[in-house]
């Protein structure tokens, strides 16, 4: 059954050295607070899975926590490159990382297959693309009905998935709305799921019946972390801090400046600090 836990305990109970882990969120609802807690607890040899690695994987790779990264877009959307990830891939600093690269369609389908309990995903993809020749996990199957050759990729099945969401009810059911990305599939594909939420409400009685709800029994732990997706955003709560994404490009460009930023904003901080980081991004009611 789902447990309501402080984030320190939720992370310590569910993440282990050597795990395959997904911190998902498609631009919206990125579980930054959970990733920072993982950095504070200092896990090693992780396989990090995510469609768009974004700032939190740049930070975890920069701290030498990743053995391997599985991704489809290793950039800072609209800004440029992920400089810590680049340093690891190009120079092996602070350690070399193995890379498994897909397209968005490939990863979305692989998560769906994981959620559906299938061994692989089949879709019309990668035709003419160079990725199929550098990633041995991109193969093909022939449709038994039409003879069409289709792409196949193995299902994604993380040991644990972390997501951020708007709210939970007291029973531990979780609501996700807005740009819902790949989070539902990432939770259902994983052995365990940990969710940080903005708030807990008594019940979901007044919600529209078609909203995305993850039932409590699909989740291992819920932690209440207001502001927990900053500098990403939470629809209905606070806006995306686009300036912070622009600023990250400068911070991550320099190894020492990166370390100093992590020390101040992650190591010497806690999940409770996130609420104040989004104060200026909350819309006037």
């Amino acid at each position, binding site marked *: 059954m789902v447990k309501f836990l402080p984030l320190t305990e939720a992370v310590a109970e569910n993440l282990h050295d050597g795990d395959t882990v997904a911190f998902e969120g498609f631009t919206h609802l990125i579980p930054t607070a959970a990733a920072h807690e993982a950095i504070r607890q200092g896990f090693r040899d992780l396989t990090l899975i995510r469609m768009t690695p974004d700032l939190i994987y740049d930070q975890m790779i920069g701290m030498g926590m990743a053995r391997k990264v599985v991704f489809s877009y290793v*950039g800072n*959307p609209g800004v440029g*490159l992920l400089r810590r990830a680049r340093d690891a891939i190009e120079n092996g600093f602070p350690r070399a990382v193995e890379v498994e690269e897909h397209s968005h369609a490939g990863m*979305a389908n692989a*998560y769906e297959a994981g959620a559906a309990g299938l061994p692989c995903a089949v879709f019309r993809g990668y035709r003419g693309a160079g990725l199929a020749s550098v990633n041995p996990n991109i193969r093909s199957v022939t449709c038994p009905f039409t003879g*069409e050759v289709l792409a196949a990729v193995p299902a994604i099945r993380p040991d644990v998935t972390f997501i951020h969401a708007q709210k939970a009810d007291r029973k531990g059911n979780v609501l996700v709305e807005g740009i819902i990305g790949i989070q539902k599939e990432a939770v259902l594909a994983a052995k365990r799921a940990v969710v940080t939420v903005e708030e807990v409400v008594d019940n979901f009685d007044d919600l529209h019946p078609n909203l995305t709800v993850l039932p409590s029994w699909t989740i291992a732990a819920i932690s209440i972390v207001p502001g927990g997706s900053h500098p990403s955003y939470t629809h209905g709560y606070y806006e995306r801090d686009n*300036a912070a994404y622009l600023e990250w490009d400068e911070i991550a460009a320099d190894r020492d400046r990166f370390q100093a930023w992590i020390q101040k904003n992650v190591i010497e901080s806690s999940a409770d600090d996130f609420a104040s980081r989004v104060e200026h991004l909350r819309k006037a009611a």
Partner: protein
Amino acid sequence: MSDAKNMGFSPNEMMTIAASRALKSDDVCFVGIGAPSAACNVARLTHAPDITLIYESGTIGTAPDVLPLSIGDGELCETAVTTVAVPEMFRYWLQGGRISIGFLGAAQLDKFGNINTTVIGDYAHPKTRLPGGGGAPEIATSSKQVYITMAQSKRGMVEKIDFFTSFGHGDGGDHRQRLGIDTAGPTLLITDLAIWKPDPVTKEFTVVSLHPGVTRTQVQETCGWVVKFAEALDQTPAPTELELKTLRDLQARTKAAHQGTAKGKAA
């Protein structure tokens, strides 16, 4: 080179406006970030008010007031007709054949419209690791047509790209059909200097229109392959006042919005 500036607009503005003119109200457009996003929104705010803009985060029929910094900014969802999950976006809407125009940018481009946004140098030991394909490998093959926009440079427009992130016309001719791809592929390239279309047979991009003040020499000097020019070479009409004002207002709103969220800069 600064002829365009003397005319009251920059080469980049001309590129964005020329690209916006290629879009129609009944297009369903899968929009990349950067110049494609600017062009699509200028089209929506001028001659193509009913164009359907789709961003890969799942927003369908979005109408943002400012340009998004990322493909998932909140405003895209708030102004959309509907927002779907990412697997649905790629399975039903893109793979299902619902997109008329895939609009892509490029780090490296060759004369057959093949795009590289993955690595400069060798894949295993890259000189520069770029962000990679994201949605582009399938946008390039599942959209009915692909439009490409980029600023010209010898580093960007090359004889041979280092990596095939998104397949264009391959080696040219019927290469797409031979791979079983039944969509048209790149049908239009808009740069800061010219408008290019593929030759009907060889599929090599050919300059069909020069932007105001641009010479053939300038196009060749900023391109890494030997440029072919159409026999009847047009001149791109200069931006109208309305087009320029729409683009500049949009970019000013965007700049203010993205800086406005800076921590500590509010005061």
